[in-house]
């Protein structure tokens, strides 16, 4: 084949504000997606993730504007920066998607999850569970002589930590809502 005679040192160097494509480190991002609340929209958003092989670590959805029929989907996903960019671009171009916010990139944010934990036990274990619940500011929302249901809100890490502590004390079941998040400040 013929020689190309390409000048050395003429390689492209981006002057544009792009995050390096070479980074292979996966990051966790929390995205808030404001969508038209009509049938099939959630399936379309979820289908994007499954169809293109993206991860979903957590997902919450509810209508947040009843008159405007807007729902807010909060999705926690993982990927390299390039993949996260692509996920956001793919979400933005969807017809029923109004806004996409990357809470991880748009400055500080508040992220909370609600969990219900059923812990069974008697005697010392039961007392210890109650004390730990107080430390974690979990509320007792149901109790029998052999069990509690605790309600707590917090970051997913905090809920994980509490659940780990409850496990040897008789944790039976746990229900979690997934993360909801808002940007801090205005």
């Amino acid at each position: 084949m013929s020689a190309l005679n390409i000048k050395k040192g003429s390689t492209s160097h981006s002057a544009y504000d792009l995050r390096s494509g070479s980074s292979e480190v996966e990051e966790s991002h929390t995205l808030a997606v404001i969508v038209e609340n009509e049938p099939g929209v959630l399936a379309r958003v979820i289908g994007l993730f499954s169809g293109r092989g993206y991860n979903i670590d957590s997902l919450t959805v509810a209508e947040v504007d009843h008159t405007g029929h807007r729902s807010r989907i909060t999705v926690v996903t993982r990927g390299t920066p390039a993949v996260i960019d692509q996920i956001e671009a793919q979400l933005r171009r969807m017809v029923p998607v109004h806004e996409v916010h990357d809470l991880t990139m748009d400055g500080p944010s508040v992220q909370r999850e609600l969990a219900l934990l059923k812990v069974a036990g008697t005697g010392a274990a039961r007392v210890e569970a109650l004390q730990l619940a107080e430390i974690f500011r979990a509320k007792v929302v149901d109790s029998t002589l052999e069990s509690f249901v605790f309600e707590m809100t917090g970051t997913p890490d905090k809920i994980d930590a509490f659940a780990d502590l409850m496990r040897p004390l008789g944790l039976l079941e746990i229900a979690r809502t997934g993360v909801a998040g808002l940007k801090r400040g205005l």
Partner: protein
Amino acid sequence: MSKQMTGARMVIQALKDQGVEVVFGYPGGAVLPIYDEIFQQNDIRHVLVRHEQGAVHMAEGYARSTGKPGVALVTSGPGATNAVTGLTDALMDSIPIVVITGQVPTFMIGTDGFQEADTVGITRPCTKMNWLVKDTAKLADTIHQAFHVATHGRPGPVLIDIPKDVQFATADYVPAESARISHYQPRTDGDAAQIARLVELMESAERPILYTGGGVVNSGLRASQLLRELVAETNFPITSTLMGLGSYPASGKNWVGMLGMHGLYEANLAMHGCDVMINIGARFDDRITGRIKDFSPHSKKAHIDIDPSSINKVIRVDVPIVGDVTKVLEEVLRQWRARGSKTEKGGLATWWKQINEWRAVKCLSYKPSTTTIKPQYALERLEALTKGMDRYITTEVGQHQMWAAQYLGFEDPNRWMTSGGLGTMGYGLPASIGVQIAHPDALVINVAGEASWLMNMQEMGTAMQFRAPVKQFILNNERLGMVRQWQELLHGERYSSSWSESLPDFVKLAEAFGCKGIRIDDPKHLDDAIMEMLAYDGPVIFDCRVEKHENCFPMIPSGKPHNEMLLSADADAFKSGAVLV
């Protein structure tokens, strides 16, 4: 003053208001009310197809040759599932089509009713947007929205699923101008500052290349005019993807031919060696880029695309411009002229010298034969004998498709309809009918392979019934040619299921459909046979018996960079174990 009407009548009214002239469809239980309305009017023509896949490909052919959205109408269940391939094809190639499906009545949805399928569920990943309309009052509004969505932003297929009771019920008709479309208004103006950076790149470029794609065609005729102006003012070389052929004329002096896996040597080497690449409405498809790591390693890249998700999806670019090709090129030319921009003439002259050396390789040469018809020769003769005619070409998928792209020249956009992204065998025959319905007096030729052609051959019945004089130019090698080529070059010549043992007699088949059949296997009489095909006033099945073992070159084995492309003489290089995907 709003008008009350049934849902079925609303469908017809909304289609009329959207300027629809023809619908490709097939009736069935769940769309009978709509067919009843079709019967009682004369504004919209209905073309009865022979299979729903055909209806969608016809709508695609109609859309791609006119720039207007194509419309297909099919029934529930199997009607809808048969439309899935066409929808996916249109999604991959960004073709604006509107598919209307019937559905079982709302009260039966979810009961596994007769001919019930979860149509919106099945078609969600293969439509740009779809709707199940459960309320007649929302039907007209939804249809207007559907046309808006199909044709704005990056075009694509949309689907509206209408239960039978919604077709029977009555409600107020919402006219097009009152429809709710404000929520979907994609950006079309490119960012002026980014365009300024592109203009600066163009001024300093020593080895530029314009890499154009289907986005130029989709953007409309004005985009092609602007592209030609840009080429004329800069003298930059220009290549195109399979999808973009015709945006710049093949006879233009700056044309370096199609690029990609079976693209021209000069086009691919120019892509590899350029210092500035300007992607206009293409998407760095894997058939274009080859090995990503080694794709055009020394260039700064600009990318103009209306779809923000196309930018940086595969190849990271230096100048991203989100916008409609027409609007962006207008701004590029405005800035270029306002700045009194000049190209880097010295560098450009050297670059052209290099490109001309690559051209001199004559990568499309093949070994001629006096005894058998070489497929390349057949296409060269077809090109020569139809040049200057009002001609539209569709293709099926495979070797013949690549040869057609290599050996036929396209002077204008919307003249070349092929299944690029999805690679749908069976596309070309129905697409040719859709094109012919839109352009009744034009010459419409489907360049086909016999295997692809058989996949939707029932549509010859449609061609006959609706007097669409489509010419089916079948390069018959009795093989699945592209599969056979890969097996020869990469699978140890083990031809697993890649030949057809029991082909029909195409001439008799033509007679059975009531059209004309021509068989030719002697290169000496090929011209006469082609002339006979062109002279016949009606559909023709042209059975061109070609060399059975011809391979399609040049070829970049996938996963290889552009500068490792193979010309026919290099066939031995395959044996070294390149892996195709």
